[in-house]
């Protein structure tokens, strides 16, 4: 589904990703772990198409297409979803309206019929029930005045509603209490599907107790330095990230 090969990315003139390679197949959950500043958020942003991220080398192929060629909204319509580390507030715009506009914009781009208010409402109710969410967030402006936990819930709700094929969760677990964390995890687990892949970017192993990944990768100094099964996450929890410094020096000394 997703094949990242030797990706180099510069942000504000500074090279952040330095040859990252990663392959994700449909149905898999990949966890990307690593210390602060390793380039974890850069990966999510560059996959979603944020401006200011300059790809200097390498390629990203998503379902046989060059993902980097697409506009952010085209990526969304193609099934790429980024759950933001810091979801943005949009004052004055009703959350329900925003979600329906987003869903219909994607459906239109895919040549599918748009949903009217009633059909949309029905879908919203289904998704709320699956996620055990209350509908109070729907009647407010997008993320405006939401607590950190509410913003993350809203991201997961969008994920459920938009049903992407590839969901990238950028530190969705950061700053969440245990209840919110479980809700996020339940949401992700409910969405796991043979046709859908997840890339879960996280600093802590905590989330991975609930969302058990197929593969765990350690991102450091702009590249994947180690990959393994779920046990790697627990190993990192025990060891911390200090051992990576040695790896980084090696990587830095490389050609």
């Amino acid at each position, binding site marked *: 589904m997703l094949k990242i090969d030797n990706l180099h990315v510069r942000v504000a003139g500074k090279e952040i990703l330095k040859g990252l390679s990663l392959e994700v197949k449909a149905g898999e959950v990949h966890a990307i772990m690593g210390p602060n500043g390793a380039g974890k958020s850069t990966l999510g942003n560059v996959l979603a198409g944020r401006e200011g991220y300059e790809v200097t080398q390498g390629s990203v192929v998503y379902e046989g297409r060059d993902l980097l060629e697409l*506009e952010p909204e085209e990526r*969304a319509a193609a099934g790429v979803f980024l759950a933001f580390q810091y979801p943005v507030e949009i004052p*004055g*715009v009703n959350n329900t309206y925003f979600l329906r506009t987003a869903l219909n914009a994607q459906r239109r781009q895919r040549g599918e019929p748009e949903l009217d208010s009633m059909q949309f409402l029905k879908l919203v109710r289904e998704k709320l029930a699956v996620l055990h969410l209350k509908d109070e967030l729907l009647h407010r*402006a997008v993320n405006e005045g939401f607590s950190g936990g509410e913003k993350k819930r809203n991201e997961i709700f*969008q994920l459920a509603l938009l049903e992407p094929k590839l969901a990238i969760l950028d530190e969705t677990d950061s700053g969440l209490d245990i209840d919110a964390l479980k809700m996020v995890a339940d949401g992700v687990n409910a969405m796991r599907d043979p046709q859908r892949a997840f890339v879960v970017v996280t600093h802590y192993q905590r989330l991975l107790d609930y969302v058990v990944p197929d593969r765990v990768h350690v991102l450091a100094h702009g590249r994947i330095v180690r990959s393994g099964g779920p046990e790697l996450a627990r190993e990192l929890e025990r060891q911390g990230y200090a051992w990576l410094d040695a790896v980084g020096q090696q990587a830095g000394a490389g050609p």
Partner: protein
Amino acid sequence: MNAVTPDSGLHYVEDFTRNKASLPGRQQPWVVALREAAMRRFLAMGFPTRHDEDWKYTSVAPIERGRFLLSSGQPRAVDKPQVDAQALPGVHLLVFVDGHHVPTLSKVDALPAGVSIASLATLLERRRSGIETQFEAAASYPSAFAALNAACMTDGACVHLAKGVRLDAPIHLLFLSVTYGLAAHTRSLVFAEEDSHAVIVEHHAALGTPVYFTNTVTDIVLGRRAQIEHHKLQQESVRAFHIAAITADLAEQSRLISTSFALGAALARTDIVAKLNGEGAECSLDGLYVADSRQHIDHHTRIDHNVPRGTSRELYKGVLDDASRAVFNGKVIVHPDAQRSDAAQTNRNLLLSEHAEIDTKPQLEIWADDVKCCHAATVGQLDAGQIFYLRSRGLDEETARALLTYGFAAEMVQRIEHPELRQRLDGLLRGRLPQQLEAEVLS
């Protein structure tokens, strides 16, 4: 003093002289005297120029050059459906066409005892109507336009609310302009006695896109604990000139809610003055201006805290596209006796084009020492982070920009309590976006 060019406004003096015999109140000596004195005042002042501090950013030369003509006769016939399309549902509707009240287009339902709504022209024809004192009080004209208005006023609404009366349905004053080349000098008066309540919508609109000049004045007098909402909706023709002045006098514990929605006109200037004259008076001044192409929209507001314990809140927002220009000048003056005044003023502007321009000047003058005052002004563009967030969810860039622009301005609409008015304003706002948004967008 003003720099008066020799013939500044001469056309308007001549036009007045030609038509004064057909203006309302011609048989009432006090009206005639008032008009003549006002015209002398206008002539002495002349049209303001860019040398006047208050008109530094707004040139009214096109109004002077435009030589608009007094509309002293019968107004042109207007189709009722066209009027009904503008009217808000469930209101007491007074329609004015080119500055003249048209009873057949108006609809004032049974009013509660103690409420009277009359046309100014009718009252000017009466020997004693009770409005003389108000005119005397307002005779020191703050600008040449106010003087010109007093000299030439053709009509307007006079609303009187007796003590304790509460009018639930809003009064909708619809000033329609339909004729090319005319000047409409309308004047409205609102007297709200103790404990009375009313909502007034002052709505300026046009049929078609004629070139004309609106010069309107509204005086509001609030008695003790009276509450008046005054919503001004300026939807003039994009080729029109609009000059408006609103003055409110607030007695003890009275409350004024003023809004100004400025969407139309080639050139629009609105002056709002609120005088907190009684202790514990409160005013809230809100405004939204939305301009594009080469529109020029100017707001000057002034709040005088004359006595202790007054509260004033002011929030004006502007959205400027293309080569439009806006001016916001907000004065808050806390006079020496006005201890424990509480004033907050904010002006926020969103520039959608590099050619748009805003001149914003909040001014706080504080002469008392125990006060709480703050002000802020911002000028910005759409936020790249917000645009990306929306695009990452599938919205194209244009829709994302429209939605964010709407979100910025919608706050001013949301603050309107009256549901029909809020809905109307919401629709008008959506209609001004580069891309149409559906009705349920408002949070």
